[in-house]
Structure formats: C-alpha cells, structure tokens
C-alpha cells in the first residue's frame, strides 16, 4: 500500500481554490478565513474535533451550504448564487454522506442511473452500462436489482460511491463515510476509496480513520473552531505535530 501511494501523482492543475472564505450560521461564525488550494489528484483528509466545521467546509464546496464571504472556485467555475454555476459544479463534484442517503424507493441500479439520465441526458442503455461498470468496481453488481433497505451498511455506502461515480465527477467529497458503519464493514468501504485514489481521483475526505489518512492521503488538514489550524504531509502531521491543539487532538484520538 505504501508503495502504491508513492506512485500517485499530483498534477499542477488547480481543482479547487478557496480564498478568504467565511461563513456564518445566523450570528455564529462557523468558518473563518479559510484558504485552501487543492490540486488535481490530491487526496486530502480533514480531521478535527466535533463541531469544528469540517462538514460545513466540504458542503460549501458543492453549495449544499452558502458561504457569505470569500471566493470558491471549482474546476475554474466560480461558485456564486447563480443557479447555472451551482448545477455545473454539482454535476462535477460527487459527494458521499455519513448516512449514505440512497433513495429507498428505487433499486440499486435505478439509484445509479437516475442522475445520469435526468441531469446528463445519457440514453437509458448507456446509463445502465455505466451503472453496472461502477457497481462492478465497488464489487456488488449482483445486488443491482435489490432495494437499498435490503443491503448492509457497508454495501449501501459502496452503492452511494458508485452512484456518485456514475456522474463521472472530477472531484469526490466524503463526509465521514465510515462512521455509521460496524467495524467489519469499514474495511470494505475504505478499500473502495483506496482504489478510487489509485485511479487518480481528487478526493476530500472528512474522517477519523487515521490509518486511511496515513496510507492514502498526501495531505492532512486539522481544523478547530472553524479554522484550519495545521496542515502537512501525513508523516509530518502524525509524527511531528506543531500546534498544541493538534497535539491534544492526536493524543486523544490515537491515545488508546
């Protein structure tokens, strides 16, 4: 695994650029002066204590949350309140949620085909082939005609990943994809994500899986109180943290 990681290339092309971004929930200042540049092919893990604004940050990137100040540019498109821009960005950026959020009234296959058919206007047959391709990739093609309620948590999360991939996104966001799963299912989801990284996907992952961060990430970001406190390569970050808050957080999370 460690060898595989060394070969993963990061290009110079900028995928996401965030400058001086601020966000408030009412009078509560959740995100403060966020500056972040993500290059194509980067695998970034975002960590931090509960309530530090990790989810809010990645939700701002595909406009699930509005920001009030600053600039977010995704793939060269500036995120403004213009609906056209938002739709373009959303179809370029895939997202996986903690609770999977599959559509329970549709089969697995229909879940995967829905957005390509209705948003990208892909013909039915082609959408089905793409869906089966990605379901094979996450190793559950045999479940295609079941409903989400009939699958285990790990399988559901892999379907959610396949569903996002069917839109052929250039960037994937993950918000704690494994924290609602039983331990024996975490591995199958992480394996899928490792494979995705090996295929060169640009990924932003909010997670508490520090093993994943060490092995797959090329950068770890630590957030607290709505700010980026520290970021570094995984080895440096884990073995030689600089900020006191980072040290405290790491000692709590790795301490037992």
């Amino acid at each position, binding site marked *: 695994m460690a060898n595989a990681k060394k070969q993963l290339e990061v290009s110079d092309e900028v995928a996401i650029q965030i400058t001086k971004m601020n966000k408030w929930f009412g009078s509560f200042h959740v995100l403060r002066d966020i500056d972040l540049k993500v290059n194509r092919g980067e695998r970034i893990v975002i960590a931090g204590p509960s309530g530090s604004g990790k989810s809010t940050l990645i939700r701002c990137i*595909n406009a*699930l949350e509005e920001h009030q100040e600053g600039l977010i540019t995704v793939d060269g498109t500036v995120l403004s309140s213009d*609906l056209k821009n938002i*739709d373009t960005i*959303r*179809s370029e*950026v*895939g*997202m996986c*949620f903690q*609770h999977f*959020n*599959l*559509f*329970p*009234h549709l089969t697995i296959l229909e879940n995967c085909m*829905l*957005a390509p058919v*209705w*948003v990208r206007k892909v013909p039915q047959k082609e959408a089905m082939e793409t869906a089966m391709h990605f379901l094979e990739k996450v190793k559950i093609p045999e479940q295609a005609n079941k*409903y*989400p*309620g*009939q699958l285990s948590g790990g399988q559901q999360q892999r379907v959610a990943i396949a*569903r*996002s991939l069917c*839109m052929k996104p250039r960037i994937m966001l993950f918000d704690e994809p494994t924290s609602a799963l039983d331990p024996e299912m975490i591995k199958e989801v992480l394996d899928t994500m490792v494979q995705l990284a090996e295929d060169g996907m640009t990924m932003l992952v909010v997670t508490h899986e520090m093993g994943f961060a060490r092995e797959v990430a090329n950068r770890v970001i630590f957030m607290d109180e709505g700010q980026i406190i520290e970021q570094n390569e995984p080895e440096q970050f884990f073995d030689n943290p600089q900020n006191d808050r980072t040290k405290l957080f790491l000692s709590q999370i790795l301490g037992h």
Partner: protein
Amino acid sequence: MVDLSFVRKDIVPQRAAPLSEAGIVGWFRKNMFSDIPNTILTIIVLYFIISVLSSILPWVFSPTWYSGSLTECRSILAELGRDGHGGGGACWGVIRERWLQLLFGFYPSELYWRPILAFFLLGLALAPVLFEGASRKLLYLTAVYPFLCFWLIWGGSIWFPITVFAGFIIAYVGFVYVNKIAGSLSGVIASIVLPLIWWLFIVSPLSTMLFSILPIGSEAIDSDRLGGFMLAVLIGVTGIALSLPIGILLALGRQSDLPILKGVCVCFIEFIRGVPLITLLFVASTLLNIFLPPGSNFDLILRVMIMVTLFASAYMAEVVRGGLAALPKGQYEAADSLGLDYWKAQRLIIMPQALKISIPGIVSTFIGLFKDTTLVSIIGLLDPLGLSTNIRADMAWNGILWELYGFVGFIFFIFCFSMSRYSMYLERRLATGH
C-alpha cells in the same frame, strides 16, 4: 467446577410444528380459547353477534320486493303474521321502484346509456393510473376523459369541450415555445395567461361558430336533471382527481423559501380548513353569483365541484406536508448533490416517497370527500340523500326510513371500502423492505 466447554456433534434436523401451532384447530385454540378470560370473551362476543344478526336478518329478508306502497308492504307483512308497523320486515318495494332514480336522478331514461358509458370509460381511464399492469396507451384516454365525460353527461355541442381541451394544448405549446426564446419563468407565465385568454374570450364564440358550420352534438341535458349516485360520483371523482395535485402544490408552496408564495399558501390552507364545507357550498350557490359578471351563467354543479375541490385540497396539502416532513433531510441533499434541479428532485425523489408515506391520510381524505358530497343536498342538489327526502315526501312511501338510507349507505360503503382496499394494495405494492 462446572464444565463450560461444549461442542455440538450432531445437527438437529427440522421438524414439523406441533399440531397445536398449525391448522384450524390450533388457530382457534390459540386465538380464541387460549385461557379462561379469553374463552369467556369469545362466548360473550359470539352471543352478541348472534343476537344482533337474529334480529336484523329476518327484517332484511322480507318478501316485499313487489309492493307498490308502504301500506301494501305492511299488509303483506301482517298477512304473514309479522309485526305490521315496520318492525316485522323491511319494505324493499321502494328500492325496486326508485333505484334508477337513486342512481341517475331525473336524467331522461332513454339516455341512461350515456352516464353508464361514461362510468365504464372512467374505469378504463383510471386503470393506467391505478394499476401497473394496465396498458400505457390508455393514458391518452385518461387525458381526454374529463372532456369526453362532460360531453357524455351534459351533451350539447361537441365543439365546446373540444375548444376547452384545445386550451390545454395552447398552454403546452405556449410553454415550450416561450421557454425556448425567453426562459422558463416567461414560459410558465405564458402557459397560464394564453389559455386563460383563450377560455375567457375565444372558446364561446369559436365553439358557436364551429357548431353553426358543422352541427355535431347530442341532446343537451340541464344540470337540474342530474342527481343520485351519478352526481355524487361526478363531484367526488372531480374532487379526488384535482385535489391531489392542487394539494401537492399547496404543500410545496407552504415549504417554499419565497415569503409571499408561502404566505398565500398558508392563508389559503388555514382559511379553507377553518370554514365548514356547508358555508363554502352556500357561497357557491348564492354569493358567487354576486361576484360573477352579470349575465354569466356559471353552472351550479360546476361551482359546487370547485368548492369541494378547494376544500379537499386544503386538507390534502396538510396530509402531503406530513409526508414531506417525515423525509430525512439527507434525501434532499443527495438529490442536490447529484445536480437534480428542484422540480426533478421533487418529481423523482421527494414526492414518490412523501406520497407513499401519506397514502393512508390521502385515502382518508378521499373517502371523507366522497361522503361529504351528500352535503350538497342542503343547497338543493339531488344527490342520493336529497332524493331520499324527495321520495319520502311521496304519498306512497311517506314514513319509510331505514330501507332508503340503508340502501344509500350500503352503496356508499361499497365505494369507500373499495378505496380503502385499493390503498392497502398500493401500500403493499410500493413496499421496498425498509
């Protein structure tokens, strides 16, 4: 020391359940005679059922089918040695004599085939909506059915329903065309304004002109000749078919971020729900005439249909809102993150789930609406209850009560029970195991 280790050597094979668990005897023993209180309850309830049936059944089975008046009934019963004052048996002669009237009101009997045909076509038009197996081609019939039904029942020039229908085509074409050149908002406005102009100013002269060129039509029937279950079904089905879409739009409006739209929807829902249906019906029958331009002849049944629809829509909106509230926020977010726009997300993700959750509430509202159609008798329309009053005013049947209302109630029960059964079938069909 207790020995804690255990390793199974031979696997226990499956055996049939003991007889007390399976079979009819087992079922009775388990569910009705399991212990002494249960046995006592079973016996008491059985006694109650038998004593009720033994007094009702002789009343129901009474040989009075061919009698022509209440007095004749009573003398038949007295001859048989039964109590001649109503307790001895039902007087079914009234149903034999008046059942057609209870079904069709004062519709001309030589034209009964028209409402009957309309009723059968209704079944065909509903089939593709209600059942998965039905042919999709029937949806074309569904689309033109309202106009066809109108023409079958009221008759008159065929050009009137056709030109009204053309209004919808104009709305669609207007939307597609304007949408292309001026954006979706202008498209929506065009699809509302163009057909309104068409209906208000063009339909009436155009259909008159077409009729004078090509006089195709059938014998026109006045609204005051419609009645009975035909009227109840007419009002009920219109209300049911229109209140669901209007209710969905109101529920969405109530959840909207746009304050004015939201305010309008909330006011409408709360106002309509806060006023008794009877009041709305009186408004329809009297007040509305004051507001309408003088000389405009807006059919009373049509006005009543509108009021009943609005009334049911307000309730429907709240039922649907309940379904929407039960959906986790994640469903909206997943739809958004895949790039679906608002209407697509509503149509493909949100509504299918919200409506499924709301099925019991929706069907309750439908059933309530259908039974509420009997209230129109208060403003003088001849629905089954209005007709019953009429029949009871007849010298021959003066004093008859249970037979008429029992019959009317029985027919209503068949309709409402079917709706309830259908909803259970639908819930089972839509179940996806979660």
